[in-house]
């Protein structure tokens, strides 16, 4: 059974394994699958399609434009928890022992 997804507050005290700074023309979805592939030592094409976890286009739309400054999204993709804000994406390796 899959562990409960941690809430935003649970990450406050934890140091992320990787932080990706989003620039204006970045698509967050592309940053998610390329970075998780790199962290997992795999090619992007070897990973399970991101679309099987979340709708990548919905994620991109969520952070498209100035209205999104207050938004954030948390989900798990492969062995990482991913926290997306309008400025950056933080990656936390899932502790597979306890989850």
């Amino acid at each position, binding site marked *: 059974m899959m562990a409960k997804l941690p809430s935003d507050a649970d990450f406050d005290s934890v140091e992320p394994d990787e932080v990706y700074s989003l620039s*204006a*023309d970045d698509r967050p*979805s*592309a940053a998610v*699958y*390329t970075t998780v592939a790199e962290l997992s030592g795999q090619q*992007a*094409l070897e*990973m399970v*399609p*991101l*679309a*099987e976890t979340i709708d*990548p*286009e919905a994620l991109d739309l969520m952070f*498209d*434009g100035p209205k999104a400054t207050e938004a954030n999204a948390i989900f798990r993709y492969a062995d990482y928890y991913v926290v997306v804000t309008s400025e950056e994406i933080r990656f936390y390796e899932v502790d597979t022992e306890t989850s």
Partner: protein
Amino acid sequence: MAQTNSTETARCDVDAVFDCLSHRHRRYLLDLLRGRTSMTESDLATHIVAWERAKPLIEVTRRECKETLSTLHHLHLPKLAASGLVERDETDQTVTVTDNPVLQTASVLDAIDTTTTDSHDSLDAVFDVLATERRRTMLSILAGQYHPIKRRTLARDVVAQEADIDEKDVSVDEVDAVLASIHHVHLPKLLDAGFVEYDAEAETVTYEGHPALRVEWVESSMGNEISETVASDEESGDIQTIDGRSNIISYGQSLCEYADDELFLLFTKTGLLEAGCFTRIADAVDRGVDVYLGSPDSQVRERVKERMPGVTIWEPKRDWLNLPSSEGRVGRLVFADREAVMLGTLGELEQGVHQESAIAGRGTNNGLVTLMRELLNPRLGLLEAEGHDIQSPL
């Protein structure tokens, strides 16, 4: 994210329009608003609830409308307004449809006409697929393929088409980036909607098409607005010329969609019958259209026979329609309902592919159509008489 130039803006508008059309409530709203001056948001909500629950407007209660009204207010109407299809008056909460040309396009009007449409879910999926330019480009490439295509080849074609450069000038990095987006985003969508099949081992994509898809929606990625390859119901005495293989393929495919009674097809060379044509021919058979297909390639004939048993197939043996004064010879012929025709001629070979050009005419009294009828009627009569199993070459 930031829109940098007007072309970019125009392309985004097409995305936004298709996105609007990808929800049946939004299609229904557009259909409601057409031909009316304006409607209040609560009237619109009442109509949607009445339609959903198949009951008279007068029996819809305010309570039943509450949730629909908030979805309209927060989701559907902002989307429709942002894409320029409707205008909202915030003070008196009314909505008016704009004169956006999209809403004069016959194929779009068909799609939003809720009385004739029965498969709402599948239309949702089709428009969802179309709502991104990259996927429209993928579909247009896939529909022009005769064989399954390697995923990487597809990515390279997409890069070349998006940047409008030659395939050999495409960099590996660009192909990798597009291929990753195909793997993670676009291919899953096309698979979900049933547009393609994917062989993970061979890494090949096979185009299956979709009965609700119209050629002009895919081709809108070429221009910056939705255009129609076959104009609504206009008949003209003019003979049109069409240049370029992809334009010819899509015009031929749109004629296949246009046919109501009879579709007469001839392909003199192997490779002219693309996957996109296959699916449209199958759709025509499903609509009850009598389809006659001639091909010199026994593999094509076998394949058609296997996949579409309703099609009458024969082998064109004689020199079909060698045009005496033309520089090329006939490559493909599409004749729909004996009132619309496209005649494609093959020219010089370039990188293994024939240069093609075509002439087309539409309308019962069109000169080209009349000529084709004169030439083909005797042969068509013969085909009809011999029925579905033509053994002797014509």
